[in-house]
Each structure stands twice: as structure tokens, then as C-alpha cells.
């Protein structure tokens, strides 16, 4: 795989799968406002995934048709995806989904900051427009956590949910294949691993907890290995396509 493409896929696939995960709360979130929030946030993330898949098509000098974007989103082999295990994780636990939303969007902000001055003009332009949308995501997660963490009932539930997700952080922030070349070519300004101390600070501010991930990152499996949850998620996303692959839409 072309290293720059591989680097872009690590971001695009994360956006695609977290978007899918959020949309699965439509109709089953605990209250109406959360239905609306998770579906809107999921919609944004899917929109960002499309923009990033378009960057890959741009590198290939291929026209970004709907079919070409769908092929990148749904038709690659499992071993070609570069998603993190956090976004592959299936969960029916809303506390875990909320904490993943907070954790993912916190890291996502720092990831966009790393490409805001990218030598890839398309990527730099996307980083600027995306931040306008992402601030709503962070405001949403923070507003809910502000009120829920103050509740003696909700607080331990949320902290337990957070603990259940910390093993995924090292994989999320482990060096991404292709990033050495991407840094050399100015596509990204620094390694994704540089986000670790920034996240540790946000966790300390938010949960009054110490998170130490730097040591775990070097022992983490990379993004070329799919978690057990991936195939189930992909099968569900492809359910209609696979039902009749010859159908014309």
C-alpha cells in the first residue's frame, strides 16, 4: 500500500466506523435529544470520512464518484482497513458509547490540528471546515459529562465505562503505518503518538484520573490487525449490498 494512502486510511476508516457506530443509536438512545445528537454527530463523521476517502482518490488521480467512494468504504478486504480497535468495538452500553464519543472526539481534535498546515491542500482545507463541526461534538459530550459526573449515581457508572475503554487508547495512538513518509512529505506535522500527553492532560482535567499510555503504545498491536468486532460490523453495513450484489440503485 502507498504509505500516504495508508496514513489517510487510518483517519478515514476511523471516521467511517465511528460514524456508523453513532448512527446505530438512532431510536434506542436513552432520550430523544440523544437520538438527535448521536445521529447528527454520526452524520458529520460519515461526511468527514467521505472527504478523506476523496483525498485518497485525489492521490490516485481518480474521479471521486459515489461509486468510487463506496468502493473504498465497503469493498476493501478486512486486512486493508486501518481503523483503530476503539471504533470497531460493538457496544450496547450507552455509558460506554458516550465515553467513546468523548474520547474519540478529544483525540480527533488533535488529529485535525496535525494536518491543518498539510502540504496536501485538500486535507488542510478539510481540517479547517471540520473543526467548525467538531466543536459541537465536544460541546455535546462535555455538557452531558458535566451534569452526569456530578451525579453520585451516574459517576461510578461513567468511570467504569471509561476504565473499560482505556485498553483501546494505546492502539488508537500507536504509530500509524505510512506516517513516517507522511511527515517527511509535510502531509502531517507529527506522529499520532504526540497526542498521548495532550490526552493525558484532558483526562486529568475531566476525570481527575491519571492516565499513563506512553509505555503501552510501544507494545500495542498496530492498525494492520483487525479486532474480533470488525467483521460483524462490516457484515452489518454490507447486509443490503450482499443480499443482491447485482442490484442497480
Amino acid at each position, binding site marked *: 500500500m502507498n504509505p500516504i494512502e495508508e496514513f489517510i486510511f487510518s483517519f478515514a476508516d476511523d471516521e467511517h466506523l465511528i*460514524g456508523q457506530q453513532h448512527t446505530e443509536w438512532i431510536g434506542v438512545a436513552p432520550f430523544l435529544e440523544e437520538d*438527535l*445528537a448521536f*445521529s447528527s454527530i454520526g*452524520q*458529520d*463523521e460519515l461526511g468527514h470520512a467521505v472527504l478523506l476517502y476523496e483525498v485518497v482518490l485525489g492521490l490516485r488521480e481518480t474521479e471521486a464518484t459515489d461509486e468510487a467512494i463506496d468502493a473504498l468504504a465497503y469493498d476493501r478486504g478486512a486486512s486493508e482497513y486501518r481503523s483503530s480497535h476503539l471504533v470497531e468495538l460493538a457496544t450496547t452500553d450507552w455509558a460506554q458509547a458516550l465515553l467513546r464519543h468523548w474520547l474519540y472526539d478529544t483525540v480527533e481534535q488533535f488529529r485535525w490540528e496535525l494536518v491543518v498546515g498539510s502540504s496536501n491542500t485538500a486535507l488542510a482545507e478539510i481540517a479547517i471546515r471540520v473543526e467548525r*463541526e467538531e466543536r*459541537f461534538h465536544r460541546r455535546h459530550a462535555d*455538557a452531558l459529562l458535566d451534569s452526569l459526573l456530578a451525579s453520585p449515581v451516574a459517576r461510578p457508572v461513567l468511570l467504569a465505562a471509561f476504565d473499560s475503554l482505556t485498553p483501546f487508547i494505546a492502539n488508537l495512538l500507536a504509530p500509524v503505518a505510512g506516517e513516517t513518509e507522511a511527515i517527511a512529505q509535510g502531509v502531517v506535522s507529527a506522529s499520532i503518538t504526540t497526542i498521548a500527553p495532550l490526552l493525558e492532560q484532558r483526562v486529568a482535567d475531566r476525570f481527575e484520573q491519571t492516565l499513563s499510555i506512553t509505555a503501552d503504545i510501544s507494545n500495542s498491536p498496530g492498525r494492520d490487525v483487525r479486532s474480533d468486532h470488525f467483521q460483524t460490523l462490516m457484515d452489518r453495513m454490507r447486509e443490503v449490498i450482499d443480499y443482491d450484489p447485482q442490484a442497480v440503485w
Partner: protein
Amino acid sequence: MRAITGAANSATAIELAVHAAVASIDDPEYPGISIVDLGLLERLVVTNGHVDIGLIPTFSGCPALAMIGQDVSTAVRSVVGVESVEVSWLRSPAWSVARVSVEARAILADQFTVAVQINSGAAPRCPRCGAATVEQSMFGPSRCRSVHRCSNCSETVEVMRS
């Protein structure tokens, strides 16, 4: 945006006709409000019968983009003198509510009970009675709107923001 409206002396007849064709397309969420009035048109270039239209989306995940693009393409193709049309969604600049025209804001308020929040620091005003509104839900029925309630008349107010 190319200043075609209000600057007729600098625009050719075909440019004006193409602009009118784009402006004939309403936002699917707001029948009666043109996408031009919502600030979606960024670029309009006519070169020897070829039309290049650049639009910007309100939010990247808006599901109506393909439909709007198709509608614009069809409308422009029917303009006399147009031979080919290319409609593209631009990555830059980012849309903001400041692009929504004064006329569109009035229709949004009167017909859709939608307030446009230009200044994020001030509470949006109720289109019915003018009192301050209070946010009920950060996300609403579409990506570009949140849901507020009027502190005076209790009207539910949708707020368009960026």
C-alpha cells in the same frame, strides 16, 4: 461569491440567466428559500457555453448534497446557450450563517419559526414575540439546526447556527 446580482453591467446575459437558474432551486428543507439566499453558491463561471458551478455545503454530512447538485445541474442545462455544466461541492470556504441573506432570514422567521444565530454569544430571539430563547437540544431535526424554547411565549424555535 461573484457579484452578479446588483452588478448587471459587469455580468453577461448568459451569466445572469445561469444565476437565475441556480437561484430557482430551493433548499429541500425550506421550500420557498433559494439555495443562493442560503449562501450555498460560491462560484459561477461561464466560458464559451460551459458552466462551472461551485457550491458549499452547510455541513459536510448533509444528505441532500447529491440531490441539490443534481437539481442545479438540470436547471442550468436548460438555459439557452449552455452546452455543458459541471457542479462541484467545494471544500473551502466553510459555510456560515453569515452567508444567509436578510430576505431568507425573514422567511425563515415568518414561515418556519427558525431564528438564525449570527452571534453565538447572544441568545437567539423568538421569531414570534422577540423574547430570548433557551436551548433545549443542541441537535435538532437537521444538522444545521438546534432546538430552543422561547422564555416568554414557550414557542418551540429552531435555531440555524454554524
